[in-house]
């Protein structure tokens, strides 16, 4: 179980890097869906024994993060008829390098945090790395849909960190968090649809009318 969890966490980092490096929006969504599946597997692998709590959490996560949200985003892509992300504000190579830097920072920070020794030792670094990469995608991408993807990756990172505390965050709260994320992305998707209709593009650098 320990090794399986370790493998899943490494694959999560690889999926982060994949989203950073790809230009096709549909590939990004697929990477996100893969991440959702991996995240759903983790509670099952980390729990000392299989409980109803862990199974239902895993299933719920997979349902929301790997099925519903990617489907919804894919539909938004079809409606807006966008295919590729144009060069992000730091460039694709810059994004990759910043991603590698984020991973290095995450591991460095995690080694300094006072963690209880029983934890899966990769969980905190991977969660911090995913968090930072999600933030990176959110801030450097121009297409509004990519910003939503970045937000979801950020949330995945925080969720990963929350997995270190499965006892203190009761099931109901986790359900609430999932629901909040779902509704949030739902509303974002609707706004993206309207942005596309009004501005005829999803380039968020065009949203510059309001300013001081």
């Amino acid at each position, binding site marked *: 179980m320990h090794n399986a969890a*370790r*493998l899943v966490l*490494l694959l999560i*980092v*690889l999926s982060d*890097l994949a989203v950073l*490096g790809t230009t096709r929006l549909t590939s990004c969504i697929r990477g996100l869906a893969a991440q959702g599946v991996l995240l759903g597997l983790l509670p099952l692998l980390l729990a000392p024994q299989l409980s109803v709590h862990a199974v239902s959490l895993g299933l719920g996560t997979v349902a929301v993060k790997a099925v519903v949200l990617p489907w919804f985003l894919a539909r938004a892509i079809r409606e807006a008829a966008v295919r590729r992300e144009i060069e992000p504000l730091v460039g*694709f*190579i810059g994004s*990759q*390098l910043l*991603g*590698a830097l984020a*991973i*290095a920072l995450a*591991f460095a920070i995690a*080694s300094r945090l006072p963690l209880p020794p029983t934890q899966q*030792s*990769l969980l905190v*670094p991977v969660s911090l790395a995913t968090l930072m990469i999600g933030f990176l995608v959110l801030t450097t991408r121009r297409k509004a849909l990519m910003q939503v993807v970045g937000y979801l990756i950020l949330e995945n990172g925080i969720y990963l960190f929350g997995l270190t505390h499965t006892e203190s965050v009761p099931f109901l709260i986790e359900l609430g968090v999932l629901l909040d994320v779902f509704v949030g992305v739902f509303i974002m998707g609707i706004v993206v649809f309207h942005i596309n209709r009004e501005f005829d593009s999803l380039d968020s650098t065009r949203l510059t009318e309001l300013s001081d």
Partner: protein
Amino acid sequence: MTWEGGAALGILGIAAPAVPGIAVKTKSLLTGRRGAPVLQLYYDLWKLLRKGTVYSRTTTWVFRAGPVVMLASLLVATLFLPLDGRAAPAGFAGDLVVFAGLLALGRFALVLAGLDTGSSFEGLGASREVTIASFAEPTLFLCFIALVLATGEISLGGMLGTPLAVAWPRAGASLSLVGISLFVLLLAENSRVPVDDPATHLELTMIHEVIVLDHSGPDLALILYGGALKLALFGVLVVSVFVPRADLSGGVAVAVLVAGVALVAVAVGVVESIMARLRLNRVPQLLVGAAVLASFGIILQLH
């Protein structure tokens, strides 16, 4: 040097031309064609060795020296690899730098020979090749650093030999990432798809092919053989990282190596049939991606 090592060296030297053949055959079969026979390169080499050479009036001794230097550097580089899985025929601390340097020397000689012709097509290919190399070299060094961290050895014979087998259980994930990165490097250094298309006929789209456009006869045979040897060399690198053979007996280790390189050639063929060539400005992104994978492997080691 053990007799297995010597035998492996000999087998590598003789069987190298079959490696590109396997790749091409796999690609042909996957795309629904019969394709050239696996041993096609041997026939080409035999044909070329018996032909005469034509030298352009604008070339100098640099043009004649290019293929020879390239092949010589490759052969010397082979000596640093532990082909029997335990130790290399030649080695000393820090020889990984010499290895990378020899590969670079070979590439440099070829590029100079291409520039020596004075043709603009060769110049085009030369500048592209060197650009790709400038991204590939750091990636290679990052992979080497990861191996150094895993095994604690700074000689190629040690990094890829017995200490690697010892390090595998602990650093398996990191080494897998290094292996993947080395495979991408293989595609880049040997001008395979998605970095360069070895089958293209248009000079404007070639990278490696266009540098050697003007060579003929035995010179071209040397270059083709050198290319096959380089592919086999990188194949050995990839196989050594993924399959540590120190625990196997000598003969079995060599057999596993041969099978492994053949498998790598099949993988190259599969990749060539799945992917299309990348646009030139996307090739650096691919190599940076490979570098990031290798650096992630390094980070995992340091954790």
